């Protein structure tokens, strides 16, 4: 698919070379509305955040916000958020990849459709409702807790609480595993039966197929999905906000507090510096993700 369109571009470029410049510009005019829209609602606000984060609250150029966010409590929040991103990505990517594999390989067409739809809802709109559902299941009065108590296991006897790091990781699984299934399934789908047959005909055992063909093909997509999951858990706000009562310092929650004005006024621009910090960390994960996905799409389609 991609190669066809690429050829189209190349082929079209040749005859009109003489008028290339003028031709280019007039063709781009209908693209202006989207460009202006993105510029106004996305690039301009983000540029303002970057600029303001390097200004003191009196409006002078300064690195004071950067030093503020590198010290506690913000340093701790960054460490917590990065840890949350990593733990969540590890705990969700492995079962997610396994489920995606089983469904893609063994499931029927309609089962695959249902799983994709379910995953779509959970991954995109699940956040806040899921948090409250977990309170219903694992809160002090929760149904699951009461059933376990009847079976003789009071999970609240030891120091368990849903509103903890572990609790957040568990709840995040509910949108992270579906997200993994969505982004990783195309990679498994892309491994063609012919390749398997070919390696079998050449005398490869299944383990050799996986060692030399399957895993090398899947590994980049797995790494990419892992990065996406990291970024998703690192930046998640809604679920954490609905679940924690401020007992765990996470960067998104602290930005939320600063925006809500729950702290001293002299830190107005610290929130923007925190935002810049988040963008940087998120970009470190998301840019490789996008690059790998782009390359993988060549053989997946």
């Amino acid at each position, binding site marked *: 698919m991609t190669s066809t369109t690429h050829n189209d571009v190349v082929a079209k470029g040749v005859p009109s070379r003489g008028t290339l410049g003028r031709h280019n510009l007039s063709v781009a005019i209908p*693209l202006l509305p989207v460009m202006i829209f993105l510029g106004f609602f996305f690039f301009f606000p983000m540029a303002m955040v970057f600029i303001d984060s390097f200004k003191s609250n009196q409006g002078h150029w300064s690195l004071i916000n950067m030093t503020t966010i590198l010290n506690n409590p913000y340093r701790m929040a960054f460490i917590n958020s990065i840890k949350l991103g990593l733990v969540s990505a590890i705990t969700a990517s492995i079962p997610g990849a396994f489920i995606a594999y089983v469904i893609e390989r063994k499931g029927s067409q309609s089962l695959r459709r249902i799983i994709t739809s379910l995953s779509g809802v959970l991954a995109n709109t699940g956040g806040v409702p899921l948090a409250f559902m977990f309170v219903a299941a694992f809160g002090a009065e929760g*149904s*699951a807790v009461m059933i376990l108590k009847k079976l003789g296991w009071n999970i609240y006897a030891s120091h368990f609480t849903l509103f903890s790091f572990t609790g957040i990781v568990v709840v995040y699984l509910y949108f992270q595993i579906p997200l993994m299934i969505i982004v990783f399934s195309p990679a498994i789908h892309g491994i063609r039966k012919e390749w398997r047959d070919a390696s079998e005909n050449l005398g490869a055992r299944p383990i050799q197929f996986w060692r030399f063909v399957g895993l090398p093909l899947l590994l980049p997509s797995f790494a990419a999905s892992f990065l996406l999951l990291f970024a998703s858990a690192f930046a998640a706000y809604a679920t954490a906000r609905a679940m924690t009562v401020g007992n765990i310092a996470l960067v*998104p929650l602290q930005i939320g507090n600063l925006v809500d004005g729950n702290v001293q006024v002299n830190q107005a621009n610290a929130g923007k510096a925190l935002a810049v910090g988040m963008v940087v960390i*998120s970009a470190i994960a998301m840019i490789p993700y996008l690059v790998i996905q782009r390359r993988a799409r060549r053989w997946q389609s």
Partner: protein
Amino acid sequence: MKRKSLLLPVTLISCIIFIALPFGSATEFSFRDGGKTKHSLAAYRWILAQEDFLHYLGVSLRLALGAVLITLIIMVPTVAWLHLKAQRYRPLMEFLTLLPLVVPVVALSIGAQSALPEALQSSEYELSFMYVVLAMPYTYRALDIGMSAIPLKTITEAARGLGASWIKAITYVIAPVIRNAVIGSLFLTLALSLGEFTLTSLLHWDTFPTWVTSVSQQNIIGAIALSVFSLAAAFFLLFAIGLVTMRSKSDAMEGHK
């Protein structure tokens, strides 16, 4: 061989248990009367008695429809144009529309709050515009993939070559073939807008999801019942749309025969 055939059922059953745990618990919990073991419809009656329930549902729907409308007006023609006449700009547009995915929503919220003009920020419809930005990586991809799957350029040129005016070509050729891609992308926008929490709450507006969170502070059972309601509604909406797009797909197939 035997083990292999068990793999799918075992995986499915684990998934079902995994999903049923919070959903089942929440449903059971939402029928509890005052947090005790007696069950009743009290929580749901309480919801229906809240004037805010319909009010915020209405606000969310209005803003989501606004976002859908903006997507329809600016995204659909742009992607169609990219495929018809401006192929060489596709990589650039793909790159630009993917960028909102790189920036955490929390960070964009701060930017919107400090950079958008006051006049716009005093209207709740600023959210519709911002929802379009958040949905753009998905809507662009959905439209792009949908339009790549059909020879849009060729059939449009064929229609024009046979003497159709641009208006006729758009109504009778372009619109019908891109319909599924358009419905898909609009649904994505709708779903994302209806469930959006982060940006809405950080820009200090109240919609259905943020209202549910504020309800939880006075009536946790009410909030849980609302959560059951909103996820059930999301699934229902999704399957309804799935049916519609499937039917129109089979219509299109029959049309070819």
